[in-house]
Each structure stands twice: as C-alpha cells, then as structure tokens.
C-alpha cells in the first residue's frame, strides 16, 4: 500500500513553526565524570540531522539526555516549543536505542515489543496488533511478528526496534546508530522510510558512524568531540579519504536519488 507523500506537513506538526527540538547549553555528568559540556543545537521540522563523532564523544549521551532518560547537570532541552517534562506530548517523540535489552529468558514476540511502542505518558494502552504489523511491514518483518525476538539475529532485532519507533508515527525521531549490524538492503529500507517521514514533516536526529548510506538525506551534521560541538553545518564528506587527491571514486553511488524515486513504501495505512 503506497503512501502519497503530502506536500504540506501534517496538521499536528504544523501548529508549531519553531524548531521541533532545542538543546541549550546541555551538560551531563555521569558517575562523577563530565560527558557533555554546554551542547547547543536546534532541529527544525522535516530536518534530518546527523550526530557524528568518535566513540566516547557523547553522541549517545546527548540522545539519552534529550529524551529524559538520564538527568542533565545543566542546560535545558525542549521539544515542540516547551521544556521536556510532564507537559511534553511524548506520543510525538520516537526513539530507536542502540540495541535490544539482553534477554531474561521470557520469550517476547516482535509484535509484543512493537505494540509497547505506542505507550507514552498520555497513553497507557499498547498499540493494536494491526498497527504493530503495519509498522513491522515497513521494516520487512511482518511475517515474523509472532516470532520471539530472542530467536532473532541482531540485525532483525534492530529492525523490530525501528518498527517500535515507527508505530507511533513520531514528529521527532531519535535513532542511535540504527545501522549497526543490519545488512545493506535493510539500511536502504531505513533510508527510504526516513525519507518518507521527513517529507511528512518529521524531524530526525540520527547518531551515525558512517554517513555514506544516508548521504543526500542528511541536511545537517553536528560533530561532537569530547562532549563539545565542534561542527554544526553541512555534512562532511562520507570519508576523509574520498577527498584526497588520487582517490578514484570508482564505486557507483546507488544513490539516495534512486532511493527517493523508488519510494512506494508505506508507513501509513494505520489509521
């Protein structure tokens, strides 16, 4: 079922015109160690922002602080124009963590995991099975809806986690290294999906190590180094080596252009 990408943003994203997300002078201290030092950035509706940086630069910490998972020692984060807290419309915020929590032995189906994605501060009822299967369908996992996630590979679990964030159709989506451990065709599916969503007005913040598959989709890159923003602007070239003289740009760019043209993927049809 194809989703016609609307030209304008959906109603709920439209009533607020400023940045969807704002971090101001965010500082985080974890176990006595300062991880973030005054990180400030904005994300606008429909914008795809890559959060880049070496291991330990504070990318995941920034995402977790942005979602209220860990406390901040200083600064503020706000979503949809108001500080993150009880007044926040959590149903509009989606999150894809780095990995599934380690198994406890109780089998849990993909469907059960994804249905929990519908819960928020204002909604204590899980999503319906139909909604969960629609979200799993986007990630090509609908036929495994009843399979326990414990029996799945890391990449398949990652797809389930992405589906869990998609089920609530967020207007602000955080993804923490969503491409780790998933194969190329799934990465393509993810890129397609993010493209559909951002055209519908969803703002996306994605932590990445390798920007290549997302090239052309990323509007802006924020580079963190030792907990400070060292770059906020156009995305850097995928790899430094590519820019060096003598580097033959031999590999064909399967290209975001082509991905974008191919978009027949639906994330809608849940209404």
């Amino acid at each position, binding site marked *: 079922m194809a989703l016609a990408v609307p030209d304008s943003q959906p109603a709920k994203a439209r009533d607020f015109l400023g940045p969807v997300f704002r971090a101001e002078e965010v500082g985080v201290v974890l176990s006595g160690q300062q991880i973030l030092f005054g990180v400030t950035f904005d994300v606008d509706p429909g914008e795809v922002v890559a959060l880049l940086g070496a291991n330990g630069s504070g990318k995941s910490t920034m995402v977790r602080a942005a979602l209220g998972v860990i406390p901040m020692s200083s600064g503020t984060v706000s979503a949809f124009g108001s500080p993150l807290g009880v007044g926040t419309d959590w149903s509009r915020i989606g*999150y894809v963590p780095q990995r599934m*929590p380690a198994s406890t*032995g*109780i089998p849990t189906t993909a469907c059960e995991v994804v249905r929990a994605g519908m819960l928020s501060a204002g909604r204590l009822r899980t999503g319906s099975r139909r909604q969960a299967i629609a979200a799993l369908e986007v990630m090509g996992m609908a036929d495994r809806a009843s399979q326990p996630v414990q029996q799945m590979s890391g990449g398949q679990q990652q797809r389930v986690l992405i589906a869990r964030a998609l089920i609530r159709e967020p207007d602000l989506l955080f993804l923490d290294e969503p491409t780790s451990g998933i194969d190329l065709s799934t990465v393509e599916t993810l890129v397609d999906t993010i493209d559909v969503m951002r055209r519908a007005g969803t703002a996306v913040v994605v932590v990445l190590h390798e920007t290549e598959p997302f090239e052309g989709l990323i509007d802006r890159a924020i580079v963190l180094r030792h907990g400070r923003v060292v770059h906020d602007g156009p995305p850097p070239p995928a790899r430094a080596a590519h820019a060096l003289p003598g580097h033959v740009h031999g590999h064909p760019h399967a290209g975001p252009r082509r991905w974008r043209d191919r978009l027949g993927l639906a994330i809608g049809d849940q209404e």
Partner: protein
Amino acid sequence: MIELLGSALMQRALLAALLVGATAPIIGTYLVQRRLALLGDGIGHIALTGVAAGWLAGALAGLATPEALALPGAVAVAVLGAVGIEWVRAKGRITGDVAMAILFYGGIAGGVLLIKIAGGTSASLMTYLFGSIATVSVSDLLWTTALAGLVLTVSFGLRGPLFAVSHDEEFAKASGLPVQLFASVLAALAALTVTVSMRVVGLLLVSALMIVPVAIAQTITKSFSSTMAIASAIGAAVSVVGLSITYWHDLPPGATIVVLAIGLYAAGSLFQRFRRQPTPNTDPHPDLDDDVTVRDTTTPFQEPPP
C-alpha cells in the same frame, strides 16, 4: 475425593491455594522480565520483620492475641521495603542484588530481634516461615480473595506499561512513562502477594510460587502473554494438587507444592532436550535473498584444463 471436598477447612485451604497459585506467577512473570526474580524472596525475609513488628505492636497495645497484628504488620513493612528497594535501585547508589542481599539479612535479623522483644520466640515465627494452610480462617480467605482481585485488576489493567517497564526500562523512560511509579506499583504488588500468600506456602517458599511456574512456562511458550497465562495455570494446578496430596499423606503443604513445581520444571526441561532435535539442513531465512553466491562444495572441484 468427595471426602476431601467435604471438609469446610479443606475447602477454604484449596480455594486459598488456587487463588495464590494463580496470581503469584502473574506478578512473577513481570519480576523475571525485570530481572528481579529474587525480589519475592527478599520481600519474604523483610516480611518476617513485619510479622514481628506487628506482634510487638499488638503486645504494646495490650491486645489479648498480639498475633492479630502480624499480618497487617507484614503487609505494611513488606510494601515499604519493596518500594524502598526500587527507590534505592533507581537512585543508582547500589546495584539491585546488593540491595536485595541487605534486605535478606536485615529482614531475618530484624524479625528474630523484634519477636524476642515482643515476648515471643523464634519458634513463633515458624508458622509464617513455612505457612499454615491447614488453619486458613474465613478472614484469611477473604484477604486472599481481595488480594487476588487487586493483583489481577492492576496487572491486567496496567499490563502495557508494566510490560514496557519490565522489558525495556530505558525505552519506557524515553516514552515519557513514569517508570519509577510503575516499578513501585509492581514492587508493592509483589509485596502484597508475598504477605497474603504466606499462610499458604510460607514466607520462605512464596517466592518459589512466583518464579518456578514462570520458569516452567517459558520452556514451552513463544510470547510474554502466553508465558504469563500458562504460568498462572501451572501455579494453580501445582498448588491444588500439592495441597491435596497433603490431605492423604502427612506432608508439609508449602514444601510439597514447591517440590512438585520444581519436579515439573525438571521433567519439562528433560522433555525439551529430547523433543528439540536440531532441525535438518533447511534455509532458516527463506524470505531473504542470498547476498553472496558460494561455490557448491558438494560437487568435486574440477581442475581447469591447462
């Protein structure tokens, strides 16, 4: 069999066992998912302090039977202790297992100390440690029924958030759910289950009735909800069967129920070993295209002609 059901005492005991057996594994499923399988045991220990504290309060108030306040004391102290564990855990000052270890030791020591001060002896605590289902009174049964109703209402009414908090706490926080609140609700339900069930299997073994049926169920189920349902059915079955056995044979009911459950777990695991033969050589992912073409190694390699 008719003789068994004819006794009013046995009717009450069976009904209490059925209710406790069915509800304890429901809370247990959440606890196992939350990696707090031993929380029930920790609560059992601290409830002992509650029993003794209730006893002491009864003695101080000059009640004819100071024991009358033992159950309310156990409920109050166990709920406070369980919610306290969650609070300490959330503060991150101490890991869950160390917090529980302190609760174990503190609970036993506090119970033995307080019961002595209250004028009782450690032997007075024995009926609470190992249960006294043979003496279930009408009011005990009413308490057990009310508890079962409360546990079922809350654990089904809030099953979405309780599942989310148990399965992936970080995601639950990132969804804006009041994680600390739901974790405390779960801990309080566990404490209620333990203290009201102590008459049936005793404080030392009530945790087993929360956890072992879940362990049995998860060897045969494929989802969280079916694990919960089957664990509840197994819990009810072993409780009723175990108790019935003690009607004909002079055995302690709590221990009989738990040994029966563990026996079932052992039998189930053995059965799984025999049943679960490795599947023959088939493509586990027929829906996925092969990404790499591999040379067929079954046909002998032909030297290319020179």
